[in-house]
């Protein structure tokens, strides 16, 4: 079994971005000590039931985990190292926002053990940053990147593109500027409208119109071309890395390995007693903390997945990866032969159409297939 990945969720932000549907909350005051204690309790809880499994990665996500105190991050890392069996090359990522509040803490996070920083830059265009409701300027983002590059051995940042009115040349220019800032990893997401966000309302009213279909596809294709020009390859639909610099933590998700998720709203997939169990924590931070206090964990659902569900999940994630799926690994992990999990006739048609192919014994989505992966998966999956 591949090593375990550990996800730790910090649910607080300085402000709610209008596009964001992550489990993030804005609070006047935060009982940091209480939340850290609860996170440590959940870590102990997972450790107790999983045993000293090899640990490959830790990811502090959010919300805005860069708002945590570096000492607390250090304590959680120390706990994880003690409870699990960390690999020598343990990858520890922290998501950070490039506001002034956080920028000053980067060195302390590094000292706490974080060895990979993921910076939420989102855009280098001031107008776009304003539209996205970000509380930092392009200048601040660039400054944060510069200092992060000096402090952390590995660095990634996020951009959101396919924004309303964004033209192909404008995006190419913005992306080229971003690539020049020389990270070895980039997450390039297309803006999506998520239900329940401020953008969803504006979108429903017709105030926000996104590039779709061919237009969005052209932006996507340009993104791949620009990134490749800078030596970053799309190892997953929206993640680009210099070979070797891929995020090990995210690969654990896409390869459908085991990951433990602690903190409010965190999801996990854990092999327990020979089954794969989907775990889910209560989303509301205070209720979650209260439950941890009472039960030792804030889990609200622990659902064993059937081979059918496992198959669907692994297919869903695996075909997003450039490396695709290996049938033997698929059958081992899901308990279902790949040939049974997919519709043979659709596969044949998809191969003929140049959407899917077998490469080195693995099933992979070709570029044309990636452009229509969701619809393709719906047809392909049994």
């Amino acid at each position: 079994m591949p090593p375990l990945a550990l996800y730790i969720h910090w649910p607080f932000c300085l402000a709610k971005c209008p596009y964001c549907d992550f489990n993030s909350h804005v609070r006047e005051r935060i009982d940091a000590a209480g939340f850290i204690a609860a996170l440590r309790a959940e870590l102990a809880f997972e450790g107790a039931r999983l045993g000293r499994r090899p640990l490959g990665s830790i990811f502090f996500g959010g919300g805005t985990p860069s708002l945590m105190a570096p000492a607390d991050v250090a304590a959680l890392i120390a706990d994880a190292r003690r409870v699990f069996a960390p690999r020598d090359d343990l990858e520890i990522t922290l998501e950070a926002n490039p506001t002034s509040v956080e920028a000053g803490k980067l060195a302390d996070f590094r000292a706490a053990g974080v060895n990979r920083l993921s910076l939420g830059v989102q855009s280098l265009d001031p107008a776009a940053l304003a539209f996205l409701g970000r509380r930092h300027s392009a200048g601040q983002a660039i400054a944060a990147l510069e200092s992060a590059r000096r402090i952390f051995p590995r660095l990634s940042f996020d951009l959101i593109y396919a924004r309303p009115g964004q033209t192909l040349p404008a995006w190419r220019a913005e992306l080229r500027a971003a690539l020049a800032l020389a990270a070895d990893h980039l997450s390039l997401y297309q803006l999506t409208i998520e239900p329940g966000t401020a953008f969803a309302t504006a979108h429903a009213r017709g105030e926000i119109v996104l590039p779709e279909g061919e237009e969005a596809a052209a932006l996507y294709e340009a993104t791949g071309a620009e990134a490749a020009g800078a030596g970053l390859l799309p190892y997953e639909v929206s993640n680009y890395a210099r070979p070797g610099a891929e995020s090990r933590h995210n690969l654990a998700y896409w390869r459908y390995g085991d990951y433990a998720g602690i903190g409010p709203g965190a999801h996990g997939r854990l092999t327990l007693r020979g089954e794969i169990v989907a775990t889910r924590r209560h989303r509301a931070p205070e209720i979650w903390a209260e439950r941890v206090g009472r039960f030792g964990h804030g889990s609200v659902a622990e659902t064993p997945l059937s081979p059918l569900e496992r198959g669907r999940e692994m297919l869903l994630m695996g075909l997003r990866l450039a490396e695709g799926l290996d049938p033997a690994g698929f059958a081992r992990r899901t308990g279902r032969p790949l040939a049974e999990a997919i519709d043979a006739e659709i596969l044949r048609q998809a191969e003929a159409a140049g959407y899917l192919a077998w490469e080195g014994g693995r099933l992979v989505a070709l570029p044309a297939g990636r452009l229509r992966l969701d619809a393709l998966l719906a047809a392909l999956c049994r």
Partner: protein
Amino acid sequence: MILADSGAESPYPSRMTDTALRHIRNFAIIAHIDHGKSTLADRLIEATGALSNREMTEQVLDTMEIERERGITIKAQTVRLSYKARDGETYALNLMDTPGHVDFAYEVSRSLAACEGSLLVVDASQGVEAQTLANVYQAIEAGHEIVPVLNKIDLPAAEPERVRRQIEDVIGLDTSDAVLISAKTGHNIAGVLEAIVTRLPPPQGDPEAPLKALLVDSWYDAYLGVVILVRVKDGRLARGQKIRMMATGAVHVIEQTGVFSPRMVAAADLGPGEIGYITAGIKTVADCRIGDTITEDRRPAEAPLPGFKPSVPVVWCGLYPVDADDFEKLRESLGRLRLNDASFHYEPETSAALGFGFRCGFLGLLHLEIVQERLAREFGLDLIATAPSVVYRIHRTNGQVADLHNPADMPDGSVIDKIEEPWIKATIMVPDEYLGAVLHLCNERRGQQVDLTYVGNRAMAVYRLPLNEVVFDFYDRLKSVSRGYASFDYQMDGYAESDLVRISILVNAEPVDALAFIAHRSAAETRGRAICQRLKDLIPKQLFKIAIQAAIGGRVIARETIGALAKDVTAKCYGGDISRKRKLLEKQKEGKKRMRQFGKVEIPQSAFLAALKTG
């Protein structure tokens, strides 16, 4: 039916029904939908104490769930009310509730034939509607005495004087004695009861003559078997008697006779003028033809009562299970439905597109919808229905004549001498401002105007229309062009030769039998094009290009192409929440389950019906 709760257990004989003829009144209530028929019936039941308050639920007579929901009556029902009139005598009033919809016109005529009079209920704030007219004419044909009742006079918008004049102008009934009531508040219900006794004639009949009883309706009861609703004309019906159905010749022995009060109450026998029920160990309603005459086997009547007509379905469509494994369940369910509804027909059919199913015949579109709904609701069946078709009459060059129920079965043009199609005579009432649109619609549907008159500011248009043009979406279109203000009624009006062609729909060059349809040659191209366009929207993009064509014989008259799967990138951050994405996928798959694989193309089941909707 649900009201049957006593039957076998009740002390027997519980009571005699030998009411003198002069103390009986048999009557129906005719009304346009929503004019207050059910409310009035409830008030009458209440006022005569036929049910205790506790038993009194709103609208006692509509019993089937679907009937309740749609506010329509499908089966004839009856209730016997005991009323002590102002003259001091006690009368038995038999209220016959009739189906109100044109699909069941024949059933209505049999119910009316069981009565001597009718209450014509008209909403005083609305006035006369098309359905009122159709029913009132039937009542007049049945020789009824008719008492006009103006309902809803409690409403500020009520205009009893205007409606009175309208009834006189349009129907020619004297309204000087019309009874003004509010069924809702109960105002003047006594006036209605008195009018029934004093103005409607008592039945006539000879208790000593050979038995003649009209079979009004029948239904299947899980405990009693088939229950038959009868009206005795001459002679008597009694337990142990051997009866004969004059149309079918079937002989049965009566097990029980009784009346509805409105619950079933056993009675020793039923004499002339009585309305009641019998049971006779009959297994299926198909043996009990509505309108048949029941006589005594030992001493049969010389001639049956007039007007018997076997029921003939006018609209047919294919019903297929969504899940092929449900075929047997569908067969069983259809059988169970037919136990209680002899007017509905079915025969096995196979379709290349849809697999194994049944071709089903109905009295009309409403009947079709009701059966489909019952199959879904009561039997939990998920069905695909093909577009409804009327019954064409094919005359072959060799002189053979045959009915065609399924467009897919249409023979090759070279062996057809001529084709006839059924026509209807439609009565449409509509406010003046929508008349233009309605006439346009009728003309568009090959209608021939028979009459156009005005009733106040409402126009009454009588049109002859091919049933084929009405069967599909005429009601919907009529509603929309008149903003819901038009009312519509029709009767069958014979067959006529017509220049009809079959249009096949081809998906990737393969004909989809379930989408074939028949249309007049003049409309073929427009309809073909409209359907191709519709299918283009209804069939989701697939991995490859799809060609959709409409053709007459080998000649393609319309063509559309559906492009391959569109580009739809989802480069988004997912994190560890895979369940959400999986559920999304499962929802997409759920949608796909409702598709039919056709060759390589998947067609959503909704397309089979929706494709043919025009306009």
